């Protein structure tokens, strides 16, 4: 050690203090454990334009070499005032805005809003409408998870799955278009029921897709990704969220179930037709990226099975209740939540008795799920950052609102 005696003690530069001469701006010295050499920390801006941030997420990463010391998400690049604009729209106009919140699965946001209104106005939803809602929810869950799977694979470095899911998602979107008339922005679930009945053609397209999906597509995905040695090495033991952390951060959806808590709004607070259906809630044990991946892959399979059950058992009858042309819920408030592909998606509506809400708030699952990266990213290598963010499955539209 004698020859190292002259090594200067590393200094931590306090906030606002000037850096020592010769140290570039943005770099600071902090003590480093194993040897006496101090390394300079580098702050890297990841995003808002980055292929792996799934939109316009901006993450500030403090790096020590290749290791992440601290991570912080910077939000607001897609803030477009959904909640505030809703206060200036009539109730039946709000669905248009809510579709654009979680743009991968618009039906879920519409459904949460419709359920909040129905509980305030005490509207009884016909059975067929409830089953159609569940059917649409499961199809969009399937299509949303497909996008997640493709982009997650692409983050890890597998380009092929992305092209496969686009092929299959186009088939799903064709079915959705046949049912609702739109590929993405459905505005299909209305307070009191749904907009259109399902046509025999749509039913047949759906069944054809499910046949192909279960016999060919799903095994293909598992061949492409699940059995891929490189993929396994990249996601196993990465981004571990333990049970307590998951609960403490208010995670929902696959992020929570991956950590071993089998909690699902569809089971805990059944809505639409889920009370009458029998289905599994897949869950993991360890809470790493691999568990979250497997939970979502199982959910894709379960969603396909559920869609089949819903088509089989679809009750006859009206698909829309009698609701007034202008919705005026009585004074009061209501909260309703659904299990969106990302977790518990809630809508809280406060009404003063007029035709516009006094306040409308979304509980976006991605927002709470994203918060956990501050906790779990430190200690990972920089290449694992994209894997962790990818496994959380965020949609910036609902985070920034």
């Amino acid at each position: 050690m004698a020859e190292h005696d002259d090594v200067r003690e590393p200094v931590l530069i306090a906030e606002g203090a000037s850096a020592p001469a010769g140290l570039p701006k943005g770099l600071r010295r902090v003590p480093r454990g194993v040897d006496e050499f101090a390394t300079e920390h580098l702050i890297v801006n990841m995003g808002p334009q980055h292929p792996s941030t799934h939109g316009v997420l901006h993450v500030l990463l403090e790096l020590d070499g290749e290791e992440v010391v601290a991570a912080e998400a910077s939000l607001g690049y897609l803030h477009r005032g959904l909640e505030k604009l809703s206060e200036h729209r009539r109730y039946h106009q709000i669905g248009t805005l809510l579709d654009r919140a979680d743009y991968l699965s618009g039906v879920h946001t519409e459904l949460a809003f419709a359920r909040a209104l129905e509980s305030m106005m005490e509207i009884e939803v016909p059975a067929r409408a409830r089953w159609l809602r569940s059917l649409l929810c499961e199809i969009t869950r399937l299509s949303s998870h497909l996008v997640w799977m493709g982009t997650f694979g692409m983050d890890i470095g597998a380009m092929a799955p992305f092209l496969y899911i686009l092929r299959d998602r186009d088939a799903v979107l064709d079915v959705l278009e046949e049912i609702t008339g739109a590929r993405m922005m459905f505005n299909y679930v209305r307070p009191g029921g749904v907009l259109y009945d399902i046509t025999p053609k749509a039913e047949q397209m759906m069944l054809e897709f499910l046949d192909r999906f279960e016999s060919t597509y799903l095994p293909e995905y598992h061949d492409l990704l699940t059995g891929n040695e490189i993929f396994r090495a990249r996601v196993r033991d990465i981004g571990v969220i333990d049970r307590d952390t998951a609960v403490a951060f208010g995670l929902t959806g696959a992020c929570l179930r991956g950590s071993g808590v089998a909690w699902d709004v569809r089971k805990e607070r059944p809505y639409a037709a889920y009370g009458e259906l029998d289905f599994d809630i897949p869950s993991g044990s360890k809470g790493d990226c691999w568990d979250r991946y497997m939970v979502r892959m199982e959910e894709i399979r379960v969603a396909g099975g559920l869609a089949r059950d819903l088509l089989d058992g679809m009750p006859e009858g009206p698909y829309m209740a009698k609701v007034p042309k202008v919705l005026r819920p009585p004074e009061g408030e209501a909260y309703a939540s659904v299990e969106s592909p990302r977790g518990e998606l809630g809508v809280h509506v406060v009404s003063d008795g007029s035709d516009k809400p006094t306040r409308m708030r979304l509980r976006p699952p991605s927002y709470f799920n994203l918060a956990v990266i501050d906790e779990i990213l430190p200690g990972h290598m920089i290449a694992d950052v994209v894997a962790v963010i990818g496994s959380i499955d965020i949609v910036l539209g609902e985070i920034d609102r």
Partner: protein
Amino acid sequence: MALDRLTGENSVVFTRSEQLLDLARRHSLWYLMFGIACCAIEMMHAGGPKYDFDRFGIFHRGSPRQSDVMIVAGTVNKKMAVSLKTLYEQMPEPKWVLAMGACACTGGPFRDYPNVILGVDEIVPVDVYIPGCPPRPEALQNGFLELQKAIKRRAEERVDAGRGEDRG
């Protein structure tokens, strides 16, 4: 080659360099992989196997420094506008901008909100506007075909200007 059959083998073709370059440019429009909001999903589908933009030479790149076209796919707000302009400035000339969807054209359903930019043409010059909320991949395809026409037109105008002619 078809040209050989028209002009005979080992023939010499005279053309303006600018016209030749623009012929190449409009058949390899690489766009910046930069999705802002909902329209980005349709942009993804446009690059997928069903619509297959690759057959027009249209392909995505991850870096603005390797891109020719920027597709503004989504709502741009005041915070994003700064990054958007930086990205545009990083792209090498010649470069083009497609405003995809109602938000990028005018602010769309969110134009009442003060934080939202009323059309991306307030920040960067836009070549083609694609209406829709969101536009279907076919609409984006049409936008690219319009852009190709615009590039061709520009090359012809430049040649005419060089000749001192006006096509009227």
